[in-house]
C-alpha cells in the first residue's frame, strides 16, 4: 500500500465514488489503445497471433428470475485452449456479467466492475442504482474500444441483475463491443454460437409450450442446455455439453434472493432426462 495520502487532499474523488478513475490516477488500469495504432503494421508473426476467446453465452427471464448460462470452451483460432472456462461471473449479490470474447479483457472488466460497485457503496454509503451499474459496464467497454479496433480485445457481455427500486423485477441487458447497452425484454445471447441460440429462444418464446417468462426452473435449465448443445452442433468454438468428459455449461440464476449457481448434479439430471 502507498505510504502517502497526498492524493487525499488533491482531489475530491470521494464525491464521485468512481473506482476506474481512482485506478487510472494510480496507474493501475491499463491505458486504452487507440484505434489507429494498428497491430497489422507489425511483423507477420504478430498478425498471425490469435487471442484466446470465450464463446457462447445466453440469458433469459423465466418465472424464477433470470437464468444466465455459458458453455465452458475457450479457443484461440482453431485451438481449444480450455474446456472449463467460467464465463458467467458474479459481480455482486444480485448482478451477473456473462462474457463472450477475450477472457483476459473480460475478466479484468469484471474485476473492475466488482470493485467499482463496492467502492461506490462504501464511499457514498448507498447502493449504486441499476442504471448506474449498467452504465459502468458500458463505459468500460467504450474505454476498451481501441483494443477492439486492433483486433485483440473484443468483449461482448450480457449483464443480468435484480432491481428492487422502484418496481422489483429482474433486468437483463446485452451490449455491443463499443459499449451500447440494450435492455432485453425476454432473452439475449452473444458469442459465436449465438445465432443458433437466438433462433431457439425465439422459437421457444413464440411457439413453444410456454413463453420463456412462464417457464419453471427445470424447464428453463432444459432449454438453456438444448440451446447450447444446438450451438455446439454447428459452431466449433462452442463447447456445449461434453458427454464424455461430463463437462456441463455453467448456469446461474438471479432472483430477488440473490444469485444461485445451479448445481452440476442437477444439470446432469436435467440433461439426462430432457436433452441427451
Amino acid at each position, binding site marked *: 500500500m*502507498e*505510504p502517502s495520502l497526498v492524493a*487525499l487532499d488533491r482531489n475530491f474523488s470521494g464525491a464521485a465514488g468512481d*473506482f476506474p478513475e*481512482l485506478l487510472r490516477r494510480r496507474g*493501475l488500469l491499463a491505458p486504452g489503445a487507440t484505434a489507429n495504432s494498428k497491430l497489422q503494421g507489425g511483423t507477420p508473426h504478430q498478425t498471425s497471433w490469435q487471442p484466446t476467446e470465450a464463446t457462447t453465452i445466453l440469458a433469459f427471464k423465466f418465472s424464477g428470475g433470470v437464468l444466465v448460462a455459458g458453455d465452458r470452451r475457450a479457443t484461440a483460432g482453431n485451438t481449444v485452449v480450455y474446456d472449463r472456462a467460467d464465463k458467467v461471473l458474479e459481480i455482486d449479490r444480485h448482478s451477473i456479467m456473462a462474457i463472450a470474447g477475450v477472457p483476459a479483457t473480460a475478466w479484468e472488466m469484471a474485476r473492475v466492475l466488482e470493485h467499482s460497485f*463496492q*467502492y461506490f457503496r*462504501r464511499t457514498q454509503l448507498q447502493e449504486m442504482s441499476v442504471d448506474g451499474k449498467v452504465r459502468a459496464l458500458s463505459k468500460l467497454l467504450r474505454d476498451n474500444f481501441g483494443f477492439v479496433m486492433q483486433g485483440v480485445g473484443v468483449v461482448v457481455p450480457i449483464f443480468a441483475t435484480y432491481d428492487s427500486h422502484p418496481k422489483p423485477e429482474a433486468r437483463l441487458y446485452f451490449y455491443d463491443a463499443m459499449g451500447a447497452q440494450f435492455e432485453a425484454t425476454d432473452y439475449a445471447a452473444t458469442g459465436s454460437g449465438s445465432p443458433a441460440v437466438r433462433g431457439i429462444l425465439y422459437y421457444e418464446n413464440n411457439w413453444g409450450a410456454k413463453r420463456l417468462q412462464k417457464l419453471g426452473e427445470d424447464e428453463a435449465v432444459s432449454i438453456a442446455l438444448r440451446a447450447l448443445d444446438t450451438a455446439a452442433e454447428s459452431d466449433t468454438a462452442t463447447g456445449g455439453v461434453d458427454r464424455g468428459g461430463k463437462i456441463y455449461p455453467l448456469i446461474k440464476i438471479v432472483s430477488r434472493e440473490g444469485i444461485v449457481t445451479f448445481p452440476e448434479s442437477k444439470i446432469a439430471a436435467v440433461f439426462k432426462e430432457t436433452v441427451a
Partner: protein
Amino acid sequence: MIEEPYRWVEAIANRREYIEAQLASGSPIAALGYRDGILFLTLGQRRQKLFEIYDRIAMGAIGHPGDIERLRMAAIELASTEGFTRSAADVSLRRLVHYSLSPVMKSAFEQVYGAPYLARMLFAEVGERPEEDLFLRVEYDGEITTTGATFAQARQDFAVLSGTQQSREQMESFLKADHAPDASFETALRSALDAWSIGHMTLQTSDAKELPERAAVTKYRQEHLANTQIEAGILERDASRAICYRPLSDTELRHLISD
C-alpha cells in the same frame, strides 16, 4: 514561532490541548468481539459514526466530520486498490494503519503551520477465528494502540473509543470484567450498551475513580435508549461470504434488549 526547539514543543502541547478539548464531547463507541463476529455500537444519531472500510474491516470515529471523511475515504481507497491489484486476502488492517494512516496523521499533527486531523478512530478486522480478530485505535497524533497481548496486558477481545481518556478507561475496565470473547450476540449487545452508558456517564463527571453502581448504569441506559437511536454494525465471522460487514438497524436490535 518555531526557531527554538522548546517553542515547537510548546506549540505541540497547545495543539494537543486544543484537540483534546474538541474531542471531549464525543459519544463513546464500543467494538466487541463475540463468538460469531465483531459488534460495533454507539448511541446518538446526529451523524453516522460507524463505517464499512473493506470486506473484513470496519471503522468507528469521533471528531470533525470533514476530517473523519478524509481519513475514511483514504482508508477505503487504499484497501480497495490493494484488494483490486492483489486480492482481498492481501488487504490487512495492520498494514493499512501502521504504514499508511498513522504516518500521515503524525506528520499533520506535528507540522504546526498546517491543520491536524481532528479525529480519533477505532478499527476492527474480523478473522477466521476469534483469536485472529484485530482491534486498533488510532489517535489524532498517529499513536496506535492495539489490543494484542503484550508484557503489560493480556489480549483483549474488545476496544473502545471515547471523548476523554477517563471515560475510555472506565469502559475498558468494565469490559475487562464483563465481556468474554465467546459471548453470544445478545450478551455482547448488552455489554456494549452498558459500556456505552458507563463511558457516556463518565464524560459528564470530572473525577470518576470507581465504576458506577450496576443499578445506576441500568437506569442511565434505559433513559438514553428511550429517546436515542442505536447505531450498530457487525463484522460477521462467516467464511462463505466475502463481505462481512452489515449495518444493524435500531428496530432490529430493540427486541433483543430485554430490560
